[in-house]
């Protein structure tokens, strides 16, 4: 026991003080707490809140952390979509219909110019009946940053006309090509992110609330309520989701305004998604309600709402958030699939699914493959959500 000479020394002096006169005794005052004392690092660990611990564990997942930051940036960017997109949403370039992606160069004739585009020429190929585009290498248009472009209303409130980057006067900038009406794909994808990303977020909020309330009641009360909820979730989970979504979205009246259709679709996606969360909440609550602190709360006369909300839910909240994160991708994919089929959002609204609806034709794959670009952000976002959610789930239980 080398680490606590104080205690040992003190004890032996008391017992055999006379017999061992030469025995070494330390001069430092006796501290009975010396074993229990912990280092500053340990103290930080033991006194950290649950969220602090989760954060420390989460930080160790490098990939999940990167994905989390990426998702945060994406969600932040939809607040300023108008600024990020090079063109406004309704802008049409009637001279450049079905233009393929226009390359951005850095070096012109061996000289570094910075990002620039060449002039973009259009000819109609009468033999193939195709529009053909080519670069005019004599004209060099360096891209402008923080420049004035199409006017817009930021979030429908503030007027503005500055963009992150745009083409100079007389040049065009179609980094991802244009569609059948000559609208810039990059701008449309940027605007589409707004709808596609929020639909997952709003949907998850709705299904989260439903799942917590229904699962919470079933788990806390048990009995017949529990068996009814169990049956219903089993039925919903055993049913193929997409046909049910299709059936529900066929209900939405055609006369509804795009905004209402958006909320309707969100609600439909959420209505079939709450079952997984409800099951998780229920099974956890079944165990937690037997804990002593729950009994204590009951004896003190707390009402069920307070017990569930105040004492039981915080114990499993981190799990819930992790599993909610993992079910956002399903919603985004669901919206994409529904809109692709023409049963979801409709054209005045721009979402990734609506954009992909135009890529429905096999001709598109053969002749205008750049119309399929909206699938790239879909894949990236869903991958990011999956990795992020995986990391969260691992970190959710730090004890």
């Amino acid at each position, binding site marked *: 026991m080398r680490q606590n000479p104080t205690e040992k020394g003190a004890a032996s002096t008391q017992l055999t003080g006379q017999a061992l006169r030469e025995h070494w005794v330390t001069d430092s005052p006796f501290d009975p707490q010396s074993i229990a004392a912990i280092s500053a690092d340990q103290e930080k660990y033991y006194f950290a809140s649950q969220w602090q611990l989760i954060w420390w564990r989460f930080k160790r997942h490098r990939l999940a952390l990167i994905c989390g930051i990426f998702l945060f940036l994406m969600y932040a960017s939809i607040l300023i979509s108008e600024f990020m997109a090079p063109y406004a949403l309704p802008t049409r370039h009637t001279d450049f219909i079905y233009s393929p992606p226009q390359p951005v160069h850095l070096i012109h004739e061996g000289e570094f110019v910075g990002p620039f585009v060449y002039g973009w020429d259009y000819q109609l190929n009468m033999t193939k009946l195709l529009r053909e585009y080519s670069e005019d290498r004599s004209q060099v248009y360096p891209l402008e940053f923080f420049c004035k472009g199409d006017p817009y209303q930021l979030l429908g409130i503030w007027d503005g006309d500055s963009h992150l980057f745009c083409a100079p006067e007389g040049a065009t900038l179609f980094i991802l090509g244009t569609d059948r009406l000559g609208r810039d794909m990059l701008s449309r994808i940027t605007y589409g992110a707004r709808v596609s990303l929020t639909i997952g977020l709003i949907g998850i909020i709705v299904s989260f609330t439903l799942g917590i309330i229904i699962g919470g009641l079933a788990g806390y009360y048990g009995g017949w309520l529990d068996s009814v909820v169990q049956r219903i979730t089993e039925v919903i989970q055993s049913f193929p989701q997409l046909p049910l979504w299709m059936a529900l979205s066929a209900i939405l*009246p055609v006369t509804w305004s795009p905004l209402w259709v958006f909320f309707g679709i969100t609600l439909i996606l959420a209505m079939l998604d709450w079952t997984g969360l409800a099951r998780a909440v229920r099974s956890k609550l079944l165990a937690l309600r037997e804990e002593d602190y729950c009994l204590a709360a009951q004896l003190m006369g707390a009402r069920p709402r307070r017990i569930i909300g105040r004492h039981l839910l915080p114990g499993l909240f981190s799990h819930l958030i992790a599993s909610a994160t993992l079910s956002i991708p399903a919603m985004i994919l669901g919206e994409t*699939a529904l809109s692709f089929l023409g049963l979801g959002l409709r054209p005045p609204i721009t979402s990734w699914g609506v954009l992909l609806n135009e890529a429905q034709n*096999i001709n598109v794959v053969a002749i205008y493959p750049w119309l399929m670009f909206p699938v790239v952000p879909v894949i990236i976002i869903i991958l990011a959500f999956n990795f992020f959610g995986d990391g969260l789930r691992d970190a959710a239980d730090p004890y």
Partner: protein
Amino acid sequence: MARYILNRLLLMIPTLIIISFIIFVIIQLPPGDYLESYISELESQGESIDPLQIKMLRQQYGLDEPFLMQYLTWSTGMLHGDFGYSFEYGLPVSDVVGDRLFLTTIISIFTIIFTWLVAFPIGMYSATHKYSWSDYSLTFLGFLGLATPNFLLALVMLYFANVTFGTSIGGLMDAEYINQPWSWNKVKSVLEHLWIPVVVIGTSGTAGMIRRLRANLLDELHKPYVVTARAKGVPPFRLLVKYPLRVALNFFIADIGNMLPSIISGAEIVAVVMSLPTTGPILIAALQSQDMYLAGSFLMFLALLTVIGVLISDLALALLDPRIRLYGEAR
């Protein structure tokens, strides 16, 4: 065992009743009915209809009766094999459904087999080579398959199949075999077209299954019996196949129940893209034109397919795994 099967069959009845009720509520929800949209369509073309005739039609199909009566007629009719009448096709629903449901079933079964064939070796490899580069890249590939919307994959595959193999675009067989009786050549033509939807629908399921198989195997690989066997000198591959894989096999069968809903969902949307003669396209059309009995019966069939699939997987599991308790509720 017989008692267990009986129990499971009895349990199906309330499930199916709930499902049929939910489906009926959903197909009844849109305002108006098929006849109303039919009348307005005729009127827009300048034709007029005898209101008496409309009234007769309404009476014939019971569209004026209260909601619960309609549900009872529909659901009891299904028990006799009478699935109602498709207004759009002017045929009994069972005549419209027939072949299409058969093809949907075929595609689902093939997809499950495909998923197994791919997920099995990859999952085994991933688990035994944990945290190697190949494991990471296979995992990433799996995630990629999970994240790609399969309708787009279907489109791209269709194009490349056409360019490289010359497979005709769309449909499940070459045009000359449509409406022909089944023959060897027709079967061959179907098989030639079948692999694209099967691969496309299978990708997302495969990814999930690889992940789960890997996790399951990893759990098993650390158990003492594996260490014992290795210490006794069993070669690694034989050991893997002989013990941990057998445990994981049960989970494969149990997983059918999880896979089926997503496979059928995938089959629907892929069918629309590739215009396969399965339930997908007709279901959408029926939903949009409020051809309610047709839509309802389709949804019911799909649900039935899932419920039966889950039942089969449960029974197979009970047969294969002696640890599954057949009787009694939770301990």
